[in-house]
């Protein structure tokens, strides 16, 4: 599963089939052994936190409601479908957002960081590839896809799937960066090697097609 392609912005659905927001953001947690996806976040506070000055202004004007968000642990996630993330229970909305900590940051923050290789060349994070870690645990992060064309995301290239590839020329430029190749993750993501040393997207671990509901057949 790729985070931006298959998880971010997806509809959240409760056990009764009722819509209960979208995946507005999610946490990445890492230590020396590797990284995994943390809780999903949904709610006004999470949305406003991504809108810069306008978001801060609206948060001040919006009162208590604008400061609330819902954190959803992976133990509450039943499955990730093609169109929705189905929850076993809908956690209540909580108070102010938790700040980032060492070893723990939101996807929205990481996706805005520059990826800098050993030669100083800069790219951006196009997506983060994960692998299912089993029931109750967040998917393990395998690595990230670094790309030269951030402006294409603005034109609807948030995902890099086959329909986007010809326009964005992602297949040629994107590089697969395994998580273990990240030398430092601070204000920038520093890599231990140059981009030329990383495999192209076609040689990265296959994320498979976006997940589908059990009732739908897989398509080739």
């Amino acid at each position, binding site marked *: 599963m790729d985070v931006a392609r298959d998880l971010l*912005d997806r509809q959240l659905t409760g056990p009764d089939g009722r*819509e209960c927001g979208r995946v507005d953001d999610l946490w990445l947690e890492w230590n020396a052994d590797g990284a995994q996806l943390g809780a999903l976040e949904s709610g006004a506070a999470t949305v406003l936190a991504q809108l810069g000055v306008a978001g801060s202004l609206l948060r001040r004007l919006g009162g208590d409601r604008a400061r609330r968000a819902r954190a959803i642990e992976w133990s509450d996630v039943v499955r990730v479908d093609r169109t929705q993330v189905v929850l076993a229970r809908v956690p209540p909305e909580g108070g102010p957002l938790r700040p980032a900590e060492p070893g723990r940051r939101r996807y929205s923050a990481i996706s805005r960081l520059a990826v800098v290789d050993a030669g100083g060349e800069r790219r951006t994070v196009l997506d983060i590839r994960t692998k299912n870690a089993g029931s109750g645990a967040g998917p393990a992060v395998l690595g990230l896809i670094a790309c030269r064309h951030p402006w294409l*995301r*603005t034109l*609807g290239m*948030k995902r890099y*799937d*086959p*329909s986007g590839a010809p326009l964005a020329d992602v297949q040629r430029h994107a590089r697969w960066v395994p998580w273990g190749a990240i030398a430092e993750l601070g204000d920038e993501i520093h890599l231990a090697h140059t981009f030329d040393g990383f495999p192209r997207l076609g040689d990265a671990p296959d994320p498979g097609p*976006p997940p589908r509901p059990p009732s739908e057949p897989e398509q080739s």
Partner: protein
Amino acid sequence: MGRYGGMVIGVVTAIGGFVDIGELVAMPQAGAEYRFGLLWAVLVGTIGAIAYAEMTGRVELASQRTVFDLIRERLGLRMGLVTLVAATLLNVLMLVAEIGGMAFVLELASGVPPVWLIAPLAVGLVLFELKGTWSLLENVPSVLGLALLVVPAALLFGGLGVDWGGAAGQLVLPHFEKKDVAVYLITSIAVLGAGMSPYEWYFYSSGGREEGWTPRDLVVNRVTAIAGFSLGSILAFALLIGAATVFFPRNIGPTHLFQAGLIPSSAFGMWGLALFLVGAFGCVLGASIEVSLATAQGIAQFFGRPWGSSRRPRDVPAFTLAYVVPVLAATAILFTGIDPIKVTVIALAVAVMVLPLTFLPLLIVANDPLYMGELTNGRLSNSLGLIFLVLLTVAGVAAVPLLIITGGAG
């Protein structure tokens, strides 16, 4: 009701629902100013409307996503919000024009000044939306709107002396004799925008969800989009040709929203006018419902909140609030005394600016076999989709300076 019954209803509602305040304002103005010189824009707008309506419905039934689901998923939160905010502001402008239009129709029928009618109409609209089911909200105004067929009937049987040869000729080779190119261009954009208002796609794709479309409804979608929009465009063509026949030779520029009623009344007298008013009221009522619900659907879908016209308002509180507030905002704007004709022309030009932000994610997803499977876009859909995307982007960019140069008076 079977699939074919649904298809017939879909076509009927598409005919009655094709016309809104945009057509009622832009077509008579275009015909009165440029005679048949803008028929091409109606034709182009209709082809674009059919192409994207078919694509919107197909994407919905194949991917189970509405337009705003796609905008959120493809453009992401921040760029998606730009589209949502732009579409919402545009929809409020459209609501100003539609509610103003309803007030002007009732003024003609009752003699009561519009200012006294605006508040009761807005309250009635909200109550209808709160109490009505999806099929009631969709079908009642559309059936009323069919009375507008009196306009093409007037052209065909009313002895108005329509120059059909001239109309056909200018449809292929348009020309205009007026000097102001900027006004001609902004009027063309308004005519184009009248046939392709963004709310139509939001409402159409949400309608597919409301009616529980599945990939088996592919034929229903195609017939509704092609037959419904083609037949509906007859009303738009008729309004323009009627104005070219009745107003242009007399050098009359429509200054009132419903001077177009002179076209059927010239042919059939008071009955013609009465039918026109019923049809016009049905069309603007239907459009008011569609615009306000499309606004609420877009907001609810973007933020993943529950929505649906057939669900009880207390079960969908955010959705309910999201259509009540725009109606109240539009009503408040109308009380400032703003001219609904000017608002309509500006809204139509703004509509053309918003459309590319809506069509781009739609076109991308329609080409994605992972979403679409066997229903992925073919060559024809892609060619039309790309042509209109480029055309609307150019028109959208040109609309801003043209609006400034012409003072918004297309």
